[in-house]
């Protein structure tokens, strides 16, 4: 209880909020990061990302033909691309599967703010994974790279890699937000894009529009080690609008209106 409340002008029984400050956004982001680390599921997921990134690069060091930095970097994209969506999914769905959303949205009733803090946490964790991959790839290149290992390295290729990984973590988060259920989100986030790719590639009349609607096709150049053309960037942007921004908007709208039980 507050000590000797000097609320002179306030009617008895009412709450004086003039001195109150909202929960800072940065604090919510910190809490979201903490939530990712303080359970076994979250912690082991992060440890797996670290271990698999390291493992892939060790295999790369032993097996790869062309031990360049860009190839090393690309090699980490696959294991991270599989695990980062799960990270995004868990950030959202664990609140519903464990029913902590009730507490979370009671502590901060502005649900949109909470969801944006989750997006920010997802981006930060994605960036951390990217930095880890880049650092280990650099180390591997420095130790076992070929003599011209750095010749094709460029800032733009690194940025393309960053975009790819962030799309992967955010893509997961969006499916989590859409389903609010871990299993459904994980299955759908893997199966649906693949199924969509297969269908659009089977039907010949879809071939022209495929890079504009199929994220798998649109994102392939991001993994190729080539610098993207303007048109290829447009493909990435349009497919991201369809597969990330639109479902995020739908999921957000639902969570803002829904009853939390």
């Amino acid at each position: 209880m507050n000590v000797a409340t000097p609320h002179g002008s306030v009617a008895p029984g009412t709450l004086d909020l003039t001195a109150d400050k909202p929960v800072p956004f940065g604090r919510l982001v910190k809490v979201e990061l903490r939530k990712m680390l303080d359970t076994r599921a979250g912690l082991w997921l992060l440890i797996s990302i670290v271990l698999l990134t390291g493992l892939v690069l060790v295999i790369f060091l032993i097996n790869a033909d062309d031990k360049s930095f860009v190839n090393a970097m690309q090699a980490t994209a696959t294991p991270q691309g599989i695990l980062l969506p799960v990270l995004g999914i868990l950030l959202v769905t664990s609140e519903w599967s464990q029913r902590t959303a009730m507490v979370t949205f009671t502590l901060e009733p502005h649900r949109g703010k909470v969801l944006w803090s989750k997006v920010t946490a997802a981006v930060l964790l994605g960036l951390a994974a990217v930095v880890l991959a880049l650092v280990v790839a650099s180390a591997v290149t420095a130790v076992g790279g070929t003599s011209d290992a750095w010749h094709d390295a460029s800032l733009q290729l690194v940025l393309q890699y960053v975009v790819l990984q962030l799309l992967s973590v955010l893509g997961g988060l969006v499916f989590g937000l859409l389903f609010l259920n871990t299993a459904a989100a994980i299955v759908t986030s893997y199966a649906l894009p693949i199924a969509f790719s297969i269908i659009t590639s089977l039907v010949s009349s879809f071939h022209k529009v495929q890079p504009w609607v199929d994220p798998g096709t649109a994102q392939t150049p991001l993994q190729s080690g080539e610098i993207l053309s303007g048109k290829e960037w447009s493909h990435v942007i349009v497919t991201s609008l369809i597969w990330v921004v639109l479902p995020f908007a739908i999921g957000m709208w639902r969570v803002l209106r829904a009853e939390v039980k």
Partner: protein
Amino acid sequence: MGRVITLENVTKRYGAFTAVDDVSFTAQPGRVTGFLGPNGAGKSTSMRVMVGLTPPNGGRATIGGHLYSQIPNPARHVGVLLDASAQHAGRTGREVLRISADTMGVGPKRVEEMLELVGLSGNEAKRRVRNYSLGMRQRLGIANAFLGDPSVLILDEPVNGLDPAGIHWMRGLLRQFASQGGTVLLSSHLLHEVEMIADDMILIGRGKIVAQGTKAELLQTRGTYVKPEDPAALLQALQGAGVEAIPSGDGGFRSEAEPIDIGRAAAAAGVVLIELKPAEGAGLEEMFLQLTSDDARESITAQGVQV
């Protein structure tokens, strides 16, 4: 100073089913208000409306004059426990509190104080919530509610799962909180729990408020039940003596007057009495039992329909 919880005409419908039907009441500072009703009567839904988790179809709920969602950092004013089981099973008790403390901006020292307040020892606080008994989860939920040093508490079935010693402890804790000016609203489906803890009571059944008042008012079995040989003669005698009485439907009457006054009036008029005793069953308990049994019947019917 405590703050008033006010519900004004709150209604929540799920399709054709009205879970909360035009509910209005207040819970006052300095008092423990018991929110009593059978399971499914609308207590939890009402409480979720109060803290903004459930949008009502009509009416509004305010705390200290504000919608909960308009209170910046509300946990510093309102301590909430809606479901003690709604905690991440994989977190330790201490970690659950740390997350809340970090969100509302109180230090880790406060977490340790609250663990001590609710009697979760160092070893218990280190265990994961999945290994907690319901009683321990309730204690953790209470610690969570007290964390932000609130002036209002909203607690849904906080006593559920506590042993008698735990209920006694909870009673002391909430009484102390109220005596310092805090507002406490707690729900329960057990009359005797609420009787032990509350000053005021609100009785809800099928989404509607059926009675409210102080505990003394509601639990009092005031007045007299009388059954005469000749009802008309007794009524006339009582009217002559200025005593009001209403027929109870079985040839008897209920009256606010004391048994001795009725006995005297009957004797003076020469009316023969079959029964004369302090009124029973006009109290809260009968009303509550009736609500509960009505709902029990309804659920049987519902199962019959399902099969």
